[in-house]
């Protein structure tokens, strides 16, 4: 424990043991079943034994949670200690002699398993867990094989839903408390607990309050029996029919590792894989069940060409020819600057690189942006001093300067919570309203949107009072799209200058960091180099680069609206829902002459498309993705796409070929090798390394060489209820060769960020905070039936109770909300997180709402609220 540990008085009472952290501890000698081994002092015996090849059976112990000692399955003999000891709560001490297979231990294992089974229904044939069940497996390996119990078993109504996603079978439950402890300890959503006593102990929710945690699926994964089952997976497969690959989740930018299972060419399950630097085995429910959208009936599975009002299904050659011809004509007639390329933050790195090369190397336009005015300037993201997720654990302090992580980057929220709650890192919460991590914060600082100077001064003085060697880690993102990023960036620059803060990006889209790193941003080329710095180097591979820096997304849409930009290529983005200023997006779309859509869904913007080129999506496409810390990890193809879709990078290559540039790239590995050569930040990160690195590699490799780890390939990743271990294709504990120095100096952020003028407050107006919620009208949610029912689809104006009272209406009343830009009608609701004088609007909602009210030119969005007469 570090010096700034949370006082133990604040720990949950039953979970007082520190999680042993390998590293600096001294080693002690322990004898386990006559085998003498060296283990870190204080490590729990069960973990120490496992690391040295002795598996002690267990149900309640989970290595990512604190021991509770409930199941009594892990009893062992320790010389000198009276009776049997639970190895899950016994720290090793020097000279300890342990026996895990002696007669008393065997008798206890037999006995505990017999007890666990007396009330277990043994309805294995109809249980999802059957075939991969720890109770089955450990009964086979350690159990008595027969029962002396002849009485009636305990009965409960079963199964019962405890949330929209999770079903509970109380008869199968063995009361290990893994789910309840996960909810309380890890997720901080203590919505389930035990009720009843003794043989009538059951997992319960609060009355009329479901287990509506964003992390509920983890409880299903770690349940050692089939007591908790997931509605999306129930009865969909038998475990032995599943085929599994390890991949990264792209539902947000955390990049959690997961094991993706399919059967009969349909994705049926994603399980969290325990990647030490990233997700610790956890997934959010959106990531876990969001695979369903891949099979959505709404997907476009064949190229389309506009004929009159309709997009008609056509062949790939025809569609590609048409798209290439349209772009060529615009370029030839109006110059490369007349083409804008938007999007690309949801594909693979290889897609992003190919689109960057197509736009900047072939079309030669720099009007390229993967972000849609809802993120941070590429200048900042690509050049700021970076932190890794693991840095959170050893930080001197963590400063939250961005969106609600629980809503936008859920598993990052878990890592921040762990650092703050378990490891005692002071968490400083700077925001306009309360959010999912506020309760874990040591310091809570509130400020008005767009006004941060005072808050930054407070943060600085708090940090000054904290001693510690670790870095100050600022989680930096866009707290609200209702005002520009300037105030947040100004705050970040001050903390960088005054305290050497390092930054963890809180941009959300699945591969937005890969897209920026690979050049899908104005003024940049692949590999975190500026256009000017990288021009010569990239031109050598590409044959040319844009002449001048282009516009960002807002600039592109303005140019399109005023007729300067004539053609738009939309790569996996829907301007009418993704862009925060809907009026501008609409204007731009109606003004441009040509729109080429590359995507998976016939979204609103696609109605304007002249050509629609359908891409493969996550699960169908191999490649790599980059998470918010700059970690490049491998995406695997699990199923064969239905219909006629094409990988994104291949579409770009085909278009390039039609515009006279043959890239000679045939496989995704070839694209990866070209990236390693051409993109300076990717130096050394070639296909061979990516295949072997167990948790991916963090860019630039030269700075993170020590963190690259390899594991021998393991046959099968383990059983899912245990933390799944990352696997790698190749055997070996190889060393990473030091990469060649980047051919071009990587971009650094100047940290010059002037403070925006404070917008005066109008005491009659409410200042809008606009941000996303986890479930909304996005495609992952709306096209995944299991998630769609969790979403609130209607837009609401959330205000404090006092503001609602002042307006003088009941909750749910529709009111008129007027900004300088527009007037919309929305129902008003009281929200405890929103302070007086502010209003919260979720951006990912159908119908009129935030993006109608926001004017990107205005420093803030103030609205007046009137009752309808």
């Amino acid at each position, binding site marked *: 424990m570090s010096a700034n540990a949370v006082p*133990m*008085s604040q*720990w*949950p*009472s*039953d979970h*007082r043991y520190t999680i042993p952290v390998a590293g600096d501890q001294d080693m002690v000698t322990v004898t386990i079943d006559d085998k003498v081994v060296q283990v870190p002092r204080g490590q729990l015996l069960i973990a120490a034994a496992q690391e040295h090849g002795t598996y002690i059976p267990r149900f309640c112990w989970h290595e990512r949670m604190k*021991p*509770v*000692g*409930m*199941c*009594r*399955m892990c*009893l062992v003999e320790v010389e000198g200690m009276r*009776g*049997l000891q*639970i190895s899950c*709560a016994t720290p090793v001490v020097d000279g300890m002699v342990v026996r895990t297979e002696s007669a*008393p231990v065997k*008798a*206890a294992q*037999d*006995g*505990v398993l*017999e*007890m*666990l089974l*007396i*009330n277990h229904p043994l309805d294995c044939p109809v249980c999802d867990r059957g075939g991969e069940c720890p109770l089955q497996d450990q009964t086979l390996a350690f159990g008595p094989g027969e029962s*002396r*119990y002849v*009485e009636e078993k*305990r009965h409960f109504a079963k199964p019962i839903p405890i949330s929209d996603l999770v079903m509970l079978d109380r008869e199968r439950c*063995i*009361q290990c408390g893994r789910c309840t402890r996960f909810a309380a300890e890890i997720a901080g959503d203590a919505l389930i*607990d*035990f009720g*009843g*006593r*003794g*043989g*009538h*102990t059951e997992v319960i929710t609060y009355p009329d309050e479901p287990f509506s945690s964003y992390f509920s699926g983890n409880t299903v994964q770690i349940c050692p029996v089939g007591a908790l089952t997931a509605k999306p997976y129930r009865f969909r497969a038998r475990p032995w029919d599943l085929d599994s690959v390890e991949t990264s989740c792209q539902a947000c930018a955390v990049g959690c590792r997961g094991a993706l299972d399919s059967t009969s060419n349909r994705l049926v399950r994603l399980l969290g894989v325990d990647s030490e630097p990233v997700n610790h085995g956890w997934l959010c429910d959106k990531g876990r069940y969001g695979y369903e959208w891949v099979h959505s009936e709404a997907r476009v599975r064949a190229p389309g060409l506009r004929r009159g009002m309709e997009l008609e299904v056509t062949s790939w050659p025809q569609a590609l020819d048409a798209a290439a011809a349209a772009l060529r004509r615009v370029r030839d007639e109006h110059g490369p600057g007349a083409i804008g390329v938007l999007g690309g933050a949801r594909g693979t790195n290889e897609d992003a690189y190919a689109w960057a090369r197509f736009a900047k190397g072939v079309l030669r336009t720099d009007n390229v942006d993967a972000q849609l005015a809802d993120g941070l300037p590429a200048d900042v993201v690509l050049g700021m001093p970076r932190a890794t997720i693991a840095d959170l654990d050893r930080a001197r302090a963590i400063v939250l300067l961005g969106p609600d992580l629980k809503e936008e980057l859920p598993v990052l929220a878990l890592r921040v919570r762990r650092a703050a709650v378990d490891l005692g890192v002071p968490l400083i919460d700077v925001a306009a309203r309360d959010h999912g991590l506020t309760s874990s914060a040591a310091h809570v600082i509130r400020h008005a949107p767009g006004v941060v100077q005072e808050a930054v001064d407070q943060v600085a003085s708090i940090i000054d009072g904290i001693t510690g060697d670790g870095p100050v880690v600022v989680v930096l993102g866009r707290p609200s799209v209702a005002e520009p990023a300037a105030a947040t960036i100004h705050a970040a620059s001050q903390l960088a200058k005054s305290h050497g803060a390092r930054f963890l990006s809180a941009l959300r889209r699945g591969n937005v960091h890969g897209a920026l790193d690979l050049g899908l941003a104005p003024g940049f080329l692949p590999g975190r180099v500026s256009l000017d710095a990288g021009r010569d180097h990239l031109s050598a591979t590409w044959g040319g680069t844009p002449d001048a820096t282009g516009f960002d997304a807002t600039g592109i849409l303005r140019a399109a609206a005023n007729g300067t930009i004539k053609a738009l290529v939309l790569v996996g983005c829907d301007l009418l829902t993704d862009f925060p200023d809907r009026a501008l997006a609409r204007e731009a779309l109606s003004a441009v002459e040509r729109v080429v859509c590359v995507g998976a869904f016939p979204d609103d913007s696609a109605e304007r498309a002249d050509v629609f080129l359908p891409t493969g999506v996550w699960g169908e496409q191999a490649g790599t993705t980059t998470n918010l810390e700059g970690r490049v990890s491998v995406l695997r193809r699990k199923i064969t796409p239905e219909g006629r879709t094409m990988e994104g990078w291949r579409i770009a290559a085909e278009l390039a070929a039609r515009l006279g540039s043959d890239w000679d790239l045939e496989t995704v590995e070839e694209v990866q090798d070209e990236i390693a050569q051409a993109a300076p930040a990717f130096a050394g990160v070639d296909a061979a390394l990516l295949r072997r690195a167990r948790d991916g590699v963090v860019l630039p490799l030269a700075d993170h060489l020590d963190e690259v780890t390899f594991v021998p390939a393991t046959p099968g990743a383990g059983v899912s209820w245990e933390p799944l271990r990352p696997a790698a294709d190749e055997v070996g504990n190889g060393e990473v060769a030091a990469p060649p120095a980047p051919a071009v100096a990587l971009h650094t952020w100047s940290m010059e960020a002037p403070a925006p003028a404070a917008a005066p407050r109008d005491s009659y107006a409410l200042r809008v905070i606009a941000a996303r919620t986890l479930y909304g009208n996005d495609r992952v949610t709306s096209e995944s039936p299991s998630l769609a029912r969790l979403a609130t689809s209607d837009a609401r104006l959330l205000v404090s109770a006092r503001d609602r009272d002042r307006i003088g209406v009941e909750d749910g009343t529709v009111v008129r909300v007027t900004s300088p830009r527009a007037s919309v009608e929305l129902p008003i609701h009281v929200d405890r997180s929103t302070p007086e004088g502010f209003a919260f609007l979720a951006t990912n909602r159908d119908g009129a709402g935030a993006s109608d009210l926001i004017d990107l030119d205005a420093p803030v969005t103030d609205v007046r609220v009137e009752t309808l007469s």
Partner: protein
Amino acid sequence: MAAQETRVVTKFLRERTDDSWTFDAARTHNKAYSALEKAMGMEPAALIDEVTKSGLRGRGGAGFGTGQKWSFLPKDVFPRYLAVNADEGEPATFKDHMLIEKDPHQIVEGSIITSYAIQAHHAFIYLRGEFALGADRLQAAVDDAYANGFLGKNILGSGYDLDLIVHRGAGCYIAGDETGLLSSLEGERAMPRIKPPFPAVQGLYAAPTIVNNVETMSTVPHIVREGGEWYAGMGVNKSTGTRIFSVSGNVERPGNYEIELGVTFRELIDDLAGGVSGGKKLGFFIPGGASSPWLRAEHLDEPLDMDRAAELGTMLGSGAIMVFDETIDPVLVAWRIAKFFAHESCGKCTPCREGSGWLEKVLYRMANGLGRPDDLDLLMGFGNTISPGVTWPPGMTTICQLGPSTMSPTLSLNKYWGEEIRARLAKDADRRTTLQVASA
């Protein structure tokens, strides 16, 4: 000469039955808080020494040395807490109940002295939820203590501050286990915690905590007033002083009797409690609450001495002596106790959670003529999972003592009536077969 009570903690409440619980009566007629006045003039360490010298052992059940427990607190670790265990729930134990209702000031005074001795500034009395009258009287006593400067800031001008909180439980036996009590006090389910760490090291809110029983607290003022040596002068061997025993069952005069330790079971049962009622013979008796293994007539002349009880394979536990005459079926008693434990098992440890229910089901059929010939062996068999060896002091596979306690009745059945019960089970099975044949 017939044995007599030796009243120390019960003297006042026995003498003044109309208003012993009131502040005025206690202060005027029982020198209440005079020990506190004396203690405030002493060093905390001297107080711990005095209590250690008295040989006082915890009156809750485990019988651990009180002064020794206090001395286990890690040096210089603060805050510390005192939690007074007033969750008296062991079947047939009703001594604390009486102390709480009849002499709450004695408890409050002892708690303040103890808090001062261990340098705690917050003390909690965890009161069994069902004690409604007790809650009123205890709270009134605490309020009076605050009003008279014995609690709160700067107690008696000493500069020492203490807040004492009376907390009512929610009806759960296992909250009487010291770590279960702490969990409950923190607002969680009353489930025992893994030890180590012991409460003295990491207890309430993970701070060093002393958990002491009501009777122990009631004794402390007397030790402070009269001296540790005086107290150690009573009793026998390492069981010093007096103890209150709740005698119940088939006796003429059930009730609480405070006796000097060392008095024999026979003296307690025959002289004080009036002997087995109705002139019947003694069948067996349970010496220390439902958790303790049983004794029989041949043990009547054994002294009430905690260490001697251990030698006999049982314990004086919570001081509840249940007497059963010769007509009582021990199997039925075993079943009823098993039913209690099955109901009160907290559900944390598998062997206790599942085993206590299994035990109850098998004992039920055994007691009701539906037993199977090998049922006693079955109990002794799966009992090994709950308490390896099925012996006393018990082997444990569970966190707390409730697990092995469930086996005490079975252990006693097997020890005293093994052959008899096996024969009876065989006969029962035989009779059922005969009935089936007859009706066929």
